[in-house]
């Protein structure tokens, strides 16, 4: 390490360990948060089963892509998991619609409008879903990514730029960020421009008025679950490709996802995305150790001897909690003025 101030290497270091990971983690959270926000807007409850549903979707992708690999149906260098998504999507949609038919529809029928009843029902669905995933795939961690792992690796980057610090750009990061942009664009187009999307927004804004104007509530609910299946399966698969699959890890994702939704303003799609990136960057920025970074930026006499790490990595999940508490205390509606969760 050189003694002089070296901004380029410092930036490369931060990109490799903070910015790229946070961007892809934030995108994964955003997709999950959008699914939660959709359910909340249309079905009026906070879906606690989101994390385990993502595990379920990922499980389908793992099973299908495993079969495809065994049959040789792959594209060289491209993750087979992505090719397996369309089929998994169908399975996921069937599962979610089945759960709606078996569980949630009952509470809609008896007009139990309280968020708390939906939450409680979704906790039940969460345990069942998590149980099914563990029953089929087991509880241990596994990796299912194949194909080219890197767009460019640290070694290639270093050889190309001659910098001391390298940047790796993983295929999974590239896919995550690009798929997230595509999906978000699709969602906004769908909600703003299509007839069905407008019907959903109308239903969300004022259910009685929407029903009076002839919107079919069953159709709105079904479309919602289809969108949730799309976002859930893709979010789960991208997270798994990026970091590996473990049922417990997906279950715990519920926390940062809810923090994102509430920070952004529940029911607000834009808020969900903003909240997701806020949570992702906070988690990674606060647990990163800045020693090496500061050594590049500061003159020799000011080099830190400690790691300059604000919070140990084992407290990563606590950050979501703290953000949640702060937002609920200061601005319960979230940044983008969503609905206030008050049990109604």
């Amino acid at each position, binding site marked *: 390490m050189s003694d002089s101030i070296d901004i380029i290497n410092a930036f490369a270091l931060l990109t490799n360990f903070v910015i790229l990971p946070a961007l892809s983690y934030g995108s994964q959270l955003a997709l999950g948060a959008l699914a939660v926000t959709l359910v909340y807007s249309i079905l009026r409850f906070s879906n606690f089963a989101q994390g385990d549903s993502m595990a379920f979707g990922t499980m389908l992708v793992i099973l299908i892509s495993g079969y495809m690999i065994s049959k040789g149906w792959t594209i060289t260098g491209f993750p087979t998991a992505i090719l397996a998504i369309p089929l998994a999507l169908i399975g996921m949609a069937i599962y979610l619609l089945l759960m709606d038919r078996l569980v949630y529809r009952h509470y809609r029928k008896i007009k139990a409008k309280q968020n708390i009843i939906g939450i409680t029902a979704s906790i039940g669905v969460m345990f069942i879903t998590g149980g099914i995933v563990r029953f089929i795939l087991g509880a*241990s961690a596994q990796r299912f990514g194949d194909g080219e*792992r890197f767009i460019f690796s640290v*070694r290639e980057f270093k050889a190309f730029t001659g910098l001391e610090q390298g940047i790796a750009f993983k295929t999974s990061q590239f896919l995550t960020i690009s798929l997230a942009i595509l999906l978000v664009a699709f969602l906004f187009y769908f909600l703003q421009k299509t007839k069905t999307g407008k019907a959903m927004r109308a239903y969300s804004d004022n259910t009685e008025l929407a029903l009076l104007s002839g919107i079919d509530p069953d159709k709105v609910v079904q479309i919602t679950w289809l969108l949730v299946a799309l976002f859930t399966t893709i979010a789960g698969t991208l997270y798994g490709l990026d970091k590996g699959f473990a049922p417990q890890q997906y279950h715990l994702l519920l926390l940062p996802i809810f923090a994102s939704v509430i920070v952004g303003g529940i029911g607000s799609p834009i808020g969900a995305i903003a909240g997701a990136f806020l949570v992702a960057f906070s988690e990674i920025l606060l*647990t990163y150790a*800045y*020693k*090496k970074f500061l050594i590049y930026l500061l003159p020799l006499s000011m080099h830190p001897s400690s790691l300059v*790490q604000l919070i140990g*990595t084992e407290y990563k999940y606590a950050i979501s909690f703290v953000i949640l508490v702060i937002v609920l205390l200061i601005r319960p509606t979230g940044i983008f003025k969503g609905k206030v969760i008050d049990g109604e």
Partner: protein
Amino acid sequence: MKSYLKTTAGVVLSATMATASYGATVNVGELQGFTGPLESMIGAMSGGANLAVTEANASGKYLQGTINVIQGDSVCIDAAVAIAQAEKMVNDDNVMAIMGPNCSGNTGAVITNVLVPNGIVSISPSATSPALTTLEDGGWFFRTAPSDARQGPVLASIAMARGQTDMAVTHSNSDYGKGLADAFVTAYEAMGGTVTVMAGHDDDKADYSADVAALSAGGSATLAILGYADTGGRGIIAASEDTGAFSDYVFGDGMISEVTSSAVGDGSWGTLPSPDAALGENWKAVAAAGGVDGSGVYSAESYDAMALIILASQAAGSTDRAAIQAQVLNVANAPGIQCHAGKLAECLKFISGGLVVDYVGATGVEMDAGGTANGSYAEREVIGGAFTDVKIHK
């Protein structure tokens, strides 16, 4: 089970035969966890221990009489049961020494409550906790399995010999990982090495990128991973390879596996407790001839534990408990004529002939002054994507 029965039958048979010629019977205790968490391993362990007795009895060279094994179930996790069984052996059966117990927890209890007050030797084949080294045992406790703490200094000295003078250290958040990491870091720093960061990691997480980012912030390009190959260690390697955080790795024994070697580049290395190959082959042949599963974990250490008791008694020329204690280290350690597994008859003859022996046994026994086997460690390096033995460290 079949082979175990065979051995037991052999013990009984040879016991009756030898009784005819000598008359005297000498009791020795075998306190093992026949039920409980280790029960699946005890078949081979008990087989190993009884094989040593069978061999000694069959040779007719053991001068104190015919050895009779008194078995007791230590259940491994209930210290009260282990203490009661040991008390019974010591007071009712009048054993000359005890082979066992197995688990570190109840071994400590037996040392404090039975060995020290009664003044009797026990040699454990499998209690590996570093805490037993510092426990006040009055010199009555020995073990043929190395302490977990021993691997740390071995790792540290190899690292220094390889010129790796700074590294980050991560360990599994478990008794094993923490104990090994503490032993390693203490030894490494004493030898002049610099630990840039030391941090634990939880097993069974999906994502270790934050852990690796923190570890790499210390600036070293070498990472020591003291954990498990199939869970946390694997995740750490994956995250490190993804970000290019580390290029060289050092592994504890829990990481020596194909999963690890296929994930890292050549030149990374680690250590694994392992007797040298010749001793291992010899033990397997001896065990197979005696109808014992020689590949069973701690079966060789069990054979050695029992053999040491018999040889120490031979060297003491009596079954007196204190006299046996005084001889254990003498027969276990160099100098002397080396005795291998399967050659107890010869060894007993050397001792009664007044010669000094160095019991090598099945595992290459060599004990430190505290009575814990040093063990030997294989230094394995990743060469061509697979772990390859490069050296055995004693």
